[in-house]
């Protein structure tokens, strides 16, 4: 029930992001969701794409520092308190969130929250037991 995310190390300089996007465009890879963590010197670009293996290959071949991480995607109704309900459950079970980002599904009814946990298996178990919809990777890649 986990989702493949790719992370790319970027220097904080003009054109760094653009060159990654150009590589993905030329390889016909579509981005489902993304987030960018930044410091004054460097950033980490995190992507969920339609074809993680091919994206990794292309980026690797072009000399970028890339890695593959497992994240967990949880679907919640797109209304006030949606994210809170997940976090309340996680807090109750003492599960720590490393980072998260989100996007809204095309239908407009649900939001998808992407979580990075230090213990993803335990998190998936707790969330499933408490009635949350944990999305399989295939769903996301083909949205």
């Amino acid at each position, binding site marked *: 029930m986990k989702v493949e995310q790719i*992370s790319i*190390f*970027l*220097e904080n300089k003009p054109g*760094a992001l653009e060159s990654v996007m150009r590589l993905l465009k030329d390889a016909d890879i579509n981005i489902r969701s993304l987030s960018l*963590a*930044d*410091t004054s*010197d*460097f950033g*980490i670009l*995190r992507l969920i794409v339609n074809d993680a293996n091919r994206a990794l290959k292309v980026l690797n071949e072009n*000399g*970028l*520092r*890339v*890695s*593959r*991480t497992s994240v967990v995607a949880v679907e919640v109704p797109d209304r006030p308190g949606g994210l809170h309900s997940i976090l309340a459950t996680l807090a109750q079970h003492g599960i720590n969130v*490393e*980072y998260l980002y989100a996007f809204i599904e095309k239908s407009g009814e649900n939001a998808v929250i992407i979580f990075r946990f230090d213990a993803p298996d335990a998190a998936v178990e707790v969330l499933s037991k408490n009635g949350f919809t944990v999305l399989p990777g295939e769903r996301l890649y083909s949205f």
Partner: protein
Amino acid sequence: MIYNEDFETLPREVLETLQLKRLQQVAQRVYHTVGFYKKAFDKAGVQPDDIKTLPDIKRLPFTTKQDLRDNYPFGLFAAPMSSVVRLHASSGTTGRAIVVGYTKRDIDTWSELMARCFVAAGLTKNDIIHNAYGYGLFTGGLGAHYGAEKLGASVIPMSGGNTKRQIMILQDFGPTAICCTPSYALNLAERGSAMGVDMRSLKLRVGIFGAEPWSEKMRDEIESKLNLSALDIYGLSEVMGPGVSMECMEGRSGMHVFEDHFIVEVINPETGDALPYGEAGELIFTTITKEAFPLIRYRTRDISRLIAEPCRCGRSHIRMDRVTGRSDDMLIIRGVNVFPSQIETVLIGITGLEPHYQLIVDRVGAMDTLEVQVEVSEKAFANADEVRYLQNLEKGLAKDLKDYVGVTAKIKLVEPKSLQRSEGKASRIIDKRKM
């Protein structure tokens, strides 16, 4: 003014006779007490008895920094530890530092030479000397301290850092002289002004600046900002510490080498051939009075030239010009000697970083800055994609550089392959400083 008129104004021929006698003695002593020198002399096909005239010194082999490292820590000492009263060391990663020792008489000699420097700068026992050279293993602090006490001046053992407090003491204690690196003098001037202190109205009359290369332009700047006379001093731990040579107030043009204790030569660093007076090359020093750590023809890697013309101050000792550069890749950053190889050693010890790096040296205001750009390794990035992890790598490296190399650096992680691959040493260093 001259501290030791007898020795500092010896007629050249008398001075040279004294130098020859002392050179013969030290050659005998190192040959018979230090295994390294016996081997080196034998290999060069020279015996101590072959030194019949002063120019015969050229028959003796050079000693290099690597020889000193190879004999870490005490291998080149010519006196038993029971007569060594002080140890100093250069910064360096474990086993690569250079350790020097002093007997009681060596400390007395060093103190006298530093006292000579202070007097050459016009100071007397009535002066208060603010000593901002670092105290500790570095020779600067204690060397200047003992010289100031020998002269009978009042010394403020300030050491480096803590700039705000230094400025307070400069105002409250009213020192008439200051010793520090030239860049720190400018930093004090700038920080003081920013604190609203009129740095031109302090009691400072003289500044004795060394431990890093500087220029006439910096001299003008320091003099105008601190309203004092800025003088150049030279020394290196291997040879003794500060006080190997010193500019005099009368001449203010080149530093007198205390030739009754050191023999100075200038060579072409490529060929090792002696160069005539006036030509720039690498400075070579032989210590002729040191007991614990004598050095024969030590290659300093400092580039300068010798000035044979007599000086108006009356000293007969030859002068050396400002050090204008190095014949190796050593960097001097805020007075700390840094070799890129030391940084490399630290990098290799840190998992998660590639040994591909570049050093960017710059001067912001008066302070040297060092930025170490280094590539993140594939392994490190595969294990963790978190900002925190990478920032910890940066912090860890900065701390290790401070601990092992003694230099404060800003670390910048860069993309793989963005740095030039090693094609000789120069590409690793970008020095943007303008002296």
